[in-house]
């Protein structure tokens, strides 16, 4: 993989002590005799940097030579085996949710479950997507791919036309199994609709009823969560709605995801009498009303925030929910309900901005599941900066003020108000929080 290249020219200079550029190429001496005859050792010159950037000293005398971290082979991963199924005995349909047009972890687990059902019986795992251009289906484990983006609009919520498209796929391919992600209002809704539709038309006997909240499939039996702390074990039904982590995602093989076209166009609007559900679009939600544990975007402040009014203004401008470290809460700058961390709320935001928070373990526990962390801090050595995907070493208040200015809504536009409010401001702010919390 990594071939160590030797520069013969440099080697020669290193060996020749009389060469005029010998000092440049020679490794620094790590042990020498001092003026009084005492042996001096330079600890920085011994050993070599290990793969994690930690200096390793090998006292056995062996030469340690390692490459820097960047070329570590972990990321590249072992190469996957290609699997092609040309002549399948049947099909296992997977309908991934694809939030934001990408496969989620839940979707990959579904494909893993589908492979578990398909392997050994030469069934072809078929992905059915409503958005075009979904990436990564080959690695996820799809042998075939039905792209319904031509018949169904993937961006609006239109469960009835999606159902019609799935019914036409069912008629064309009569697959062994259908797999959905059991989550509302996506796959859980669509899967139940399909289950209800097929339960009327077909006579599949005992395993016609869909299994919901399936969390394990072993030896041809599906284990699904029922109400009241019970599990149900039953024969594999045709339609399975599975929970996250129902199976391991595919990691060793790669599949072809060959496009299959289905004549679904006929069903598009032919027998659709009246549209029952019309999507009127997303509603703007006040970010402060979203429970902290669900908020997608959080601006969090700690002891390093001095200008709290500016902080609230920045949260409003950015459209972020507000969070706080425990110190900020204990100091009375934020309400208790906004505390993030071990004794506060565990958050699952896709973006978390920490302003003036040092990153104590209790705080980092609370943000362990956040996808992207941005730290704004004055101290480049603090733990939050180590955790962050992007760390800005600057003064928190000034950065937030500059952000508001750049976004065209500086707070300075209302200075007189802010000053006059300062006296009574504490109370009105309190009230505002109680509404939010």
């Amino acid at each position: 993989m990594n071939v160590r290249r030797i520069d013969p020219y440099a080697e020669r200079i290193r060996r020749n002590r009389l060469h005029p550029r010998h000092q440049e190429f020679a490794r620094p001496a790590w042990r020498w005799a001092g003026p009084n005859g005492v042996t001096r050792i330079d600890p920085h010159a011994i050993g070599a940097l290990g793969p994690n950037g930690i200096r390793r000293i090998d006292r056995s005398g062996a030469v340690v030579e390692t490459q820097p971290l960047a070329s570590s082979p972990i990321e590249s991963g072992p190469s996957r085996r290609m699997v092609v199924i040309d002549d399948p005995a049947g099909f296992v349909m997977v309908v991934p949710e694809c939030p934001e047009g990408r496969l989620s972890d839940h979707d990959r687990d579904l494909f893993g479950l589908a492979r578990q059902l398909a392997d050994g019986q030469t069934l072809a795992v078929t992905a059915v997507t409503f958005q075009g251009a979904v990436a990564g289906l080959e690695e996820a484990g799809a042998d075939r791919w039905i792209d319904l983006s031509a018949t169904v609009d993937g961006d609006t919520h239109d469960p009835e036309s999606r159902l019609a498209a799935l019914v036409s796929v069912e008629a064309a391919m009569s697959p062994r199994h259908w797999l959905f992600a059991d989550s509302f209002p996506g796959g859980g809704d669509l899967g139940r609709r399909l289950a209800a539709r097929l339960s009327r038309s077909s006579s599949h006997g005992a395993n016609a009823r869909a299994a919901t909240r399936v969390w394990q499939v072993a030896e041809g039996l599906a284990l699904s969560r029922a109400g009241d702390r019970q599990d149900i074990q039953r024969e594999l039904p045709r339609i399975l709605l599975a929970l996250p982590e129902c199976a391991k995602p595919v990691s060793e093989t790669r599949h072809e995801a060959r496009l299959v076209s289905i004549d679904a166009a006929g069903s598009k609007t032919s027998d659709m009498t009246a549209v029952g559900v019309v999507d009127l679009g997303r509603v703007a939600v006040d970010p402060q009303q979203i429970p902290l544990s669900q908020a997608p975007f959080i601006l969090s402040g700690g002891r390093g925030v001095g200008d709290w009014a500016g902080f609230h203004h920045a949260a409003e401008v950015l459209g972020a929910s507000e969070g706080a470290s425990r110190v900020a809460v204990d100091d009375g700058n934020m309400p208790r309900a906004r505390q993030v961390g071990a004794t506060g709320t565990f958050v699952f935001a896709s973006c978390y901005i920490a302003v003036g928070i040092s990153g104590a373990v209790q705080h980092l526990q609370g943000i362990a599941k956040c996808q992207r962390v941005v730290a704004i801090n004055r101290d480049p050595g603090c733990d939050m900066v180590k955790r962050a995907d992007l760390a800005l070493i600057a003064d928190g208040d000034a950065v937030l003020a500059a952000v508001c200015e750049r976004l065209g809504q500086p707070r300075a536009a209302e200075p007189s108000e802010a000053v006059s409010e300062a006296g009574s401001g504490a109370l009105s702010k309190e009230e505002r929080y109680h509404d939010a919390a």
Partner: protein
Amino acid sequence: MTPPDAAACPVVALVSSGRHPVSGRPGRAREDARAVEMGLTLAGARLQLVHAGNAEEPVLRDYLGMYHGLDDAAAQGELALLPMTPADDAVLLLATWLAESGCRLVLAGQRAECGEGSGLLPYLLAERLGWTIVSGAATIERIDADRVTLLQVLPQGQRRRLEVSLPCLITVDTLAPPPRQSAFGPARRGRIQVVDGLTAEEDSASGEWRWQPARARPKRLKIVKSGNARDRFRAAAARSSAGGQVLTDLTPEQAADRLIAYLREEKILSEEKILGDEMP
């Protein structure tokens, strides 16, 4: 928001017995109670409750106890009970009853807390009746003669506005407004009306299932698949985060630019904000 025209449209809520998530004690089911709350705010005392099951179920009185604080102070709850045994199929009974009752809007929880708890019942009912179904409602905004406008719960605290044609079945999410308390007086006064003349059929699908106490789901471990031991050790010993970008010596303005650029790149900050009307 226009006041919903409730008289034109009778509202029915499906209720079932629930279990407390921690103590396991019987009580109102969380989602069903929210459905009843939603029905009471829409239709007041004209909300009709339905339950298919055991007539002696004590929890049914808890739902009837929610008929208070309404415009009509003397109002009392009414619950239609369709008797059946736990082994029977509720879909058939409910579908027959709903078809006869002439109602056009049915509210229910997303999933029962006892029994199979699959959340399939509303869908099977809607399919049998030929009605529209919508899942995960947070609020009903308005009702016209033939359409309902509602907000649907999406992940990450988001909401979507949907327009649904009547007759329809709406399932209610746990994020809907919390239910009012159940009071003793209204619970005593409420009437439970046993509906005779419907014959229940046994649920054939569930005959061969094996029920067992729920097992804890295994935690997924991080497994590193690699050919040689050195890589496996390295992956196990490596710090979890590879470390991000650290930018020093920035003026606040530069830092702000970097932050905005990053947020735009990750599509968290859109160029133009969604300027919809606010949620009520």
